[in-house]
């Protein structure tokens, strides 16, 4: 595993296996009470975070499976792709093309 994985590991694990599955129920409670408003900033923010997490997970996948050096061009392409998706969130767009 790459060095970044060792440092980030516990914190990424905290978020993926601790924070997300736990907070999910609280958010679902909020959604039940308030309904799912597409334009509300909360939903927009959640989706932006989800995209960022997707980018992080994909990056880790590539980095860990093919060796750090070989993965750098791929990682850059990936990061650029993730950044491309960002502006669409802030515009409130609802179209996500598959990665």
């Amino acid at each position, binding site marked *: *595993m790459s060095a970044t*994985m*060792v440092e980030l*590991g*516990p914190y990424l*694990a905290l978020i*993926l296996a601790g924070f997300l599955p736990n907070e999910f129920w609280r958010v*679902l409670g909020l*959604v*039940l009470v308030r*309904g*799912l408003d*597409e334009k509300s900033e909360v939903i927009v923010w959640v*989706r932006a975070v*989800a995209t960022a*997490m*997707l980018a992080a*997970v*994909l990056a*880790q*996948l590539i980095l*860990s499976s093919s060796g750090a050096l070989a993965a750098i061009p791929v990682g850059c392409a990936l990061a650029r792709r993730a950044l491309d998706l960002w502006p669409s969130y802030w515009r409130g767009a*609802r179209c*996500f093309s598959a990665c």
Partner: protein
Amino acid sequence: MSFAMEPFLALILIGFLPSEVWRWLGIVVGRGLDEESEIILWVRGVATALIAAVVARIVVLPPGALASIPLEVRIGALGIGFLAFLLIRRSAFAGVLAGEAALVLGALAFGV
């Protein structure tokens, strides 16, 4: 710490499902709550058993300092705390005190 990311990739992608799915999920869950359905009861049972299993896990496969205390003392202290809880007006505080005291005394008596 090594772990597989692929399942999480799948989970996060699920988050990109169209919002109709989430609205439907919310309605289904909401209705489930209203009806006090059997599913809720079952989930409660599983959650209770899960926490009990966590308790047993820490006592039977203890980390660090707790491992230096004999297994019988650990389990015995758990039992004494439970008894104290039952006997003293179902007081959680009494149970915790009794369990801790039993652990320390047992450790001192039966070797650390």
